[in-house]
């Protein structure tokens, strides 16, 4: 009987690879099997300022000590001859979509997982896929031939294992690793606890409180103490994962399902210390979130605010569940400010995120004695139309002319970086 093999393909230094591939001066020397043939190049948030953050670095740049999320100034101290380029988000997204299509042309089931990752699955053994390694190599070679992007592929008996094996493929020459069903469990149990994907701080607890060194040690634990320590849901998941079990399907339509919530985030060009400046940014993000919620004909009743502090370290995510549903920023803004005033400790703020979830269809609206709900609704519908037709900056709040405003900058960007 044939089983299914699950794989995860992960692009290497995705943004940086595209930048290198699109520059003829570097392209000729590159060889797939040797990433030392790439130049030491980084994509940095804002090359004009040394405070910009490294978004991606080629392996050669990483060998010089450069890391993702490092500040550009710091990176240039380590490697003065670093090639610095600004991001081209639109290009990366286009390449990403085309790569997903290539993966879909090779495997029957594909689930895009992020801009540079995808799960896939195929039956094995089967006439089309007699050899998983050969199939993975075909994908890897195609991606190199067409896009000049290197990738790493891990394959195993389920999605979670594929993710773990993909990380193990780093040490594997050729960047392709497959653990067949028969040996997957034994291989998994040899790995250290840290190799369990998706645990975050729970790995520390397993090591310190349960004295587990390897995933095998975790698998040997009975499920009860795990459930007691981590709660019934996580306890069960840990137990299953450690035993190499994961039932989640490859969902080809995962990007099409209705949104459970909407959120927008922006990274600031410098640390903001002034409440008024942060408030301007919050309002702009809230406007954007509410616009998307209105466009989906929804309203939400849980508001979230997240601040990330200086050096992109520390911060908080706090939510507030309201007694009413809304998609009107004027109603939600005071609530967002209340979250800010309650939880912000005055640290420098480097990134702000605002979200709205617990959504319901916007089919009914409770009328108010002191608010003109119908006029507000018509006003928002009109401004939405103007924004769609003439652009976001064609009609702005006066507060978007204040120094803290990110709106005019942000409209030129995708995902917070230059398009």
């Amino acid at each position, binding site marked *: 009987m044939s089983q299914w093999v699950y794989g995860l393909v992960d692009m290497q230094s995705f943004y940086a690879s595209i930048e290198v591939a699109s520059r003829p001066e570097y392209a000729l020397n590159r060889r797939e099997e040797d990433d030392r043939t790439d130049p030491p190049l980084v994509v940095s948030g804002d090359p004009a300022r040394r405070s910009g953050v490294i978004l991606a670095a080629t392996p050669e740049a990483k060998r010089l000590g450069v890391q993702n999320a490092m500040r550009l100034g710091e990176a240039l101290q380590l490697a003065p001859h670093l090639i610095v380029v600004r991001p081209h988000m639109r290009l990366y997204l286009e390449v990403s979509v085309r790569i997903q299509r290539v993966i879909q042309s090779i495997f029957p089931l594909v689930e895009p997982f992020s801009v540079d990752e995808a799960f896939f699955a195929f039956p094995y053994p089967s006439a089309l896929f007699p050899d998983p390694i050969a199939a993975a190599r075909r994908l890897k070679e195609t991606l190199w031939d067409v896009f000049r992007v290197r990738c790493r592929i891990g394959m195993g008996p389920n999605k979670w294992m594929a993710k773990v094996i993909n990380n193990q493929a780093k040490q594997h020459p050729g960047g392709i690793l497959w653990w067949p069903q028969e040996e997957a469990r034994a291989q998994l149990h040899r790995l250290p606890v840290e190799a369990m994907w998706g645990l975050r701080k729970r790995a520390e607890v397993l090591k310190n409180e349960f004295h587990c060194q390897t995933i095998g040690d975790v698998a040997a634990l009975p499920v009860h103490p795990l459930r007691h320590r981590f709660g019934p849901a996580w306890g069960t998941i840990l137990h299953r994962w450690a035993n190499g079990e994961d039932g989640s399907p490859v969902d080809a339509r995962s990007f099409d399902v209705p949104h459970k919530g909407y959120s927008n985030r922006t990274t600031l060009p410098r640390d903001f210390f002034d409440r008024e400046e942060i408030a301007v940014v919050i309002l702009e993000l809230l406007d954007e979130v509410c616009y998307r919620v209105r466009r989906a004909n929804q309203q939400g009743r849980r508001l979230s605010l997240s601040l990330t502090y200086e050096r992109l370290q520390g911060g908080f995510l706090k939510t507030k569940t309201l007694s009413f549903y809304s998609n009107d920023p004027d109603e939600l803004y005071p609530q967002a400010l209340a979250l800010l005033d309650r939880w912000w400790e005055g640290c420098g703020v480097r990134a702000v995120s605002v979200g709205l979830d617990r959504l319901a269809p916007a089919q*009914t*609206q*409770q009328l*108010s004695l*002191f608010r003109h*709900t119908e006029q507000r609704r018509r006003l928002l519908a009109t401004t939405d139309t103007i924004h769609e037709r003439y652009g976001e900056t064609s009609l702005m709040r006066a507060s978007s002319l204040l120094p803290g405003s990110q709106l005019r900058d942000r409209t030129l960007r995708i995902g917070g970086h230059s398009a």
Partner: protein
Amino acid sequence: MEISTESTLLAGAAQLANLAIPSRSTMPTLTAMLLAADQNGLTLSGTDLDISIQIHLPLLPQTVTDERAGIRLYQPGKAMVPAQTFVDLLRRLPATIVRLHTSDNETTHLQAGRTQAQLRGFDPQSYPALPTFPSHVDFQINADLLSSLIRHSIYAVAHDELRPMLTGLYFAAKDGQLTVIATDSHRLVRLTAALDTPVSFPGLVLPARSLQELDRALDAQEQVEVAFVHNQVLFQTPRFLFSSRLLDGQYPDTSRIVPTAYPTYVVVDANEMGAALERVILIARENTNQVVRLHIAPEQLRLSAVSPTLGQVEEELLPLQFEGQPLDLACNAHYLAEALRNTTAEEVRISLTGPESPFVLTAGEVTQADAVHLVLPVRIY
């Protein structure tokens, strides 16, 4: 300080004073109860700085032998005891004579029958100053009436701390006519009552929580004297003095919200409608605005609710009276049920002006009602 009195009398007084005492506080002294004995009697006080309660127990005349009527004073003075423990201890004592005396600033000895206890409190000097009733009285009201005004309006206040004024009840009087208003901006209650004297005072907003505690302390039969001083309101009865801060700010203008004429009205049996609503709410509470739809016609009043996940429900009532044009509207079922319940009449009149305008519930008999419960509909797209 040294006094003696009967345990149930003291327990009752201590329980009342405890209403104002927080169980936890950043100021530890606030979790204590202040006892002060002098030639007038014993006063038990508690405060959380927003509200305060001072309970008075009179001195027993020498000739009276029934200890339940007051206290005996041996040594005037003050003491501070841990409030919750003091109350719990008194409540667990059998009916007997309790003797309290202080040995030092912070220790109070309690002796009752075979019970001996020492309660560690704080230095009474550290207790915050408590308000006294001023020389003037703004109005007098029967406790029963005041209690009913509070109970039938408090349901409509807002619980959103971002609209602080709406978390309070608005009190105003004109020529002896007292008006109480509560609204959370989706519904509104306006109650009016005649006072004994033709007093007038401008609108003041009292925190709902304070009034809730006051209501618990009130005893139906007593007369309550009310006075406003700066940012405080004081309520005095023969048994206690209650104070609360007033909410500071502008209460929204509600004078033009209640319509003066209604083209359509329907009168229904309140119990019947209440029971029907209870069933409709089971479904309505699962949809976004807890929407119930009303179809109001001469021969029937139909209530219905739909939930995409649960199903639907429909109820039909026979109107007792109807006048005007048939009307369809939708509103929050929970708001409607609360308004209905607080109308406290057997027959309730629902008066309407249109599907997206406020409608009001009043007691069926009266046209110029002294209790108006208004609800704003839900708009359906």
